[in-house]
């Protein structure tokens, strides 16, 4: 490498000298041909590389397929013991009884739903407002400081957020709402909202920043205020990216585990109340994985059935996001 560089420098000097002497014995084409000859040994890399890249891609795809297949297979085993009808309609989730356990997933779905909705109510407005501020109002220097902070926030381990919910947010909320239980839906919901806000803000800001300036100018030149430009031009033009960021955030809220496991409790229930203890699908999986559940028991298989349900939820969210982005995209 070093040799090669020094060779090049000498070559360049040669060019200079020759050029000043007005002779044309120096040929770039010849140099390139020579280099090519040397490199021809590397031709094998060119041939092999696509296969290696294909192999790595195949590994990740196959792994995913394997996981999904396992999930499906074990879920089938679960439905040998529990009817699909019971799973989707029974109003009680109580798997821990040998003889008369009840496997209705609705209470777990309810727990996930409550937390997710609370998280979205917190994260969407704050995330969007921050994105608008960052892309339309912040000075370059402010943006250079705030953007990395958002990215760091997005990288905090969720267990930290879990304890933040339990030991900080819950006590404050209990001062405000005395009837709030120690474990509840509200506190983890808010904290999950806080957790996904930076992601929504950052991704939405990316989408809004990529809206060409010419569009802002077009609106400003019609006498629009900065805020009108942000809301009526930039936001709609960036809507596909914004929706994608929101759905991504909500998917994370649905799949979020540690925060609800730590601060949500372990009481599956079908009530709309957000002040009492709940259990989400993810928290249930954690609970069972921690205990010593025998391989092959119905409880063991129930993890997969719940996991499958969770998977379907996030899948539907993603399909929905794709549909919405395609439907509402403003092409430019």
């Amino acid at each position, binding site marked *: 490498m070093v040799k090669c560089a020094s060779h090049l420098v000498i070559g360049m000097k040669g060019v200079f000298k020759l050029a000043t002497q007005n002779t044309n014995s120096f040929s770039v084409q010849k140099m390139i041909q020579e280099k090519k000859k040397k490199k021809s040994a590397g031709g094998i890399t060119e041939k092999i590389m696509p296969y290696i890249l294909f192999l790595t891609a195949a590994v990740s795809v196959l792994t995913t397929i394997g996981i999904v297949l396992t999930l499906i297979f074990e879920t089938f085993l679960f439905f040998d013991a529990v009817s699909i009808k019971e799973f989707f309609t029974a109003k009680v989730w109580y798997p821990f009884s040998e003889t008369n356990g009840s496997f209705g997933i609705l209470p777990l779905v309810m727990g996930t739903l409550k937390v997710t909705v609370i998280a979205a109510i917190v994260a969407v407005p704050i995330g969007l407002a921050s994105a608008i501020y960052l892309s339309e109002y912040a000075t370059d220097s402010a943006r250079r400081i705030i953007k990395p902070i958002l990215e760091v926030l997005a990288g905090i381990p969720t267990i930290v957020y879990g304890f933040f919910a339990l030991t900080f947010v819950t006590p404050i909320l209990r001062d405000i709402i005395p009837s709030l239980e120690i474990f509840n839906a509200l506190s983890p919901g808010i904290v999950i909202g806080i957790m996904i806000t930076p992601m929504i803000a950052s991704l939405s800001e990316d989408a809004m920043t990529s809206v060409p300036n010419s569009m802002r100018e077009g*609106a400003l*030149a*019609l*006498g629009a205020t900065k805020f009108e430009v942000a809301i*009526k031009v930039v936001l709609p033009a960036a809507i596909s990216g914004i929706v994608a960021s929101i759905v991504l955030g909500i998917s994370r809220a649905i799949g979020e585990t540690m925060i609800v496991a730590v601060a949500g409790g372990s009481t599956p229930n079908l009530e709309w109340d957000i002040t009492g203890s709940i259990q989400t699908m993810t928290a249930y999986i954690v609970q069972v994985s921690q205990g010593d559940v025998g391989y092959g028991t119905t409880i063991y298989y129930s993890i997969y059935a719940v996991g499958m349900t969770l998977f379907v939820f996030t899948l539907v969210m993603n399909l929905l996001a794709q549909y919405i982005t395609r439907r509402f995209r*403003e092409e*430019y």
Partner: protein
Amino acid sequence: METSTAAAKVVNPQEKKIVYKTSDLDLWYGDNQALKKINLDIMENEVTAIIGPSGCGKSTYIKTLNRMIELVPGVRTSGEILYRGKNILDKSYQVEELRTKVGMVFQKPNPFPKSIYENVAYGPKIHGIRDKKILDQIVEKSLRGAAIWDEVKDRLNQNAYGLSGGQQQRLCIARCLAIEPDVILMDEPTSALDPISTLKVEELVQELKKEFSIIIVTHNMQQAARISKKTAFFLNGEVVEFSETNKIFSTPADKRTEDYITGRFG
């Protein structure tokens, strides 16, 4: 050409008023002075062309007229620009109000990524006009005014980006007409267009000057000669010459103007 439109106009040439009076305007981008002691009186209801080589400050000047120049960080100005008698460089002058009176058409067509209808209705809407019937009328009138109605009347709800470049530019003119401005600023509106679209826009400008005062930047001298009443020649941030277009192109007073229009530089 001039006489035919003058006949159509009610205003007597002697009664024409000044729309923009620029006095001793200096402008800096940071430390770099882009405009030097500009003095120009622009009359209403005529087409004023601004010509000059690339980088001489044409865009800078026209963007100062609706204060779009403020979007560039670090811009400073001194001097005065009176629009209808009021100094727009005065910070107390409401910039949104100015831009509601002074429309702008950009070099590259920049419709919003919305339907054709929404593009035209956008201006009236942000200024509070919500009545669907009135908006329908405004949209039709503006599109007719921009000579594009017949081409788009059957697809008003389609995205504006499905139009050709020339149609997009006329749509942008329609968008501008929708708020019935007093002045229309155009910064090289045809430089991104093909010759036929260019011709259409030029014809349109001839129509529009009956109702609006038009200031158009162009580096196409034939265009300036074809469509404008007065021409200002800019060079290195200064106005070298400003007079009747036919005078500038037949008997320029300044040697530099002559060099430029005979193609000796630029």
